[in-house]
């Protein structure tokens, strides 16, 4: 119904603003309805990193876009937490400082959301409470292998 969607939208907007400024250590963001009729309107995202005048998405950098998208997904989760959240290398475009902020946010949300995430980044791996190793010892076929965090980091350092 119209009232429900409008209310959902307003709440998502609130969550998005808060999460955006956590991810960016400041700045402003908002969600706007586009079009007159709520039930058929589109959604426009404005995102303004700290110190920048521009709030249009297409001018954001690769890392800024990824951070904005993550903030939006987490805002939707806070509204209606799905049974789990799967993230496949979302940290790839991020510099180490932003990987740190991302990890702290995931850790905070993990009290109510189950996360399954894939990453090649040591900082992100260290956030995990459980590591699932996948290997193709036998070429072409995947198998699980038990891995502990020291091993995973060492395997990365060695190569």
């Amino acid at each position, binding site marked *: 119904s119209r009232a429900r969607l409008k209310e959902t939208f307003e709440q*998502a907007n609130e969550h998005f603003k808060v999460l955006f400024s956590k991810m960016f250590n400041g700045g402003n963001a908002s969600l706007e309805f586009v079009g007159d009729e709520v039930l058929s309107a589109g959604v426009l995202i404005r995102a303004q990193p700290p110190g920048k005048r521009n709030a249009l*998405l297409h001018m954001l950098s690769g890392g800024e876009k990824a951070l904005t998208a993550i903030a939006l997904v987490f805002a*939707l989760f806070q509204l209606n937490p799905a*049974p789990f959240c*799967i993230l496949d290398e979302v940290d790839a475009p991020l510099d180490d400082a932003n990987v740190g902020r991302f990890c702290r946010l995931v850790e905070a949300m993990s009290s109510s959301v189950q*996360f399954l*995430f894939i990453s090649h980044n040591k900082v992100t791996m260290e956030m995990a409470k459980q590591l699932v190793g996948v290997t193709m010892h036998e*070429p072409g*076929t995947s198998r699980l292998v038990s891995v502990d965090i020291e091993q995973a980091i060492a395997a990365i350092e060695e190569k």
Partner: protein
Amino acid sequence: MRLKKIKLAGFKSFVDPTVVLLESNLTAVVGPNGCGKSNIVDAVRWVIGESSAKQLRGASLTDVIFNGSTHRKPVGKASIELVFDNTQGKLGAAYANYNEISIKREISRDGQSQFYLNGVKCRKRDITDLFLGTGLGPSSYAIIEQGVVSQLIESKPEELRSHFEEAA
């Protein structure tokens, strides 16, 4: 409702039966390029009802069935099962009394899929209905595949709207 296990067999590069146990709320899947990590994500999308081969990085739906390696022959069937802990009774009314809920999907070379709910054959609709309104529906924001994180915010305003409807 927590996801406890992902069981794969004959699915993409997981030719041998494999069980991924999820014992915490922060589980990382790690391994070298091409070892099969994203195939696990495809497995989850597939079992909850994904019907587009392209979304599963295949040309046809039977591309999810293990098609061989230098040491192994292709197999005839793929199957994925998700086991949920439902002790808090959060999932769908009819299943509130079950402590464990399992959903399963199998496909054979003829392209026919079969779904199961707690071991009993069911229609695809029964599975998609189960997740309706939980954020895992068709325009799910709960699974971000590799390389698409930025595309989420680049989609057209109408497409974005469907994520809000899902969350409402």
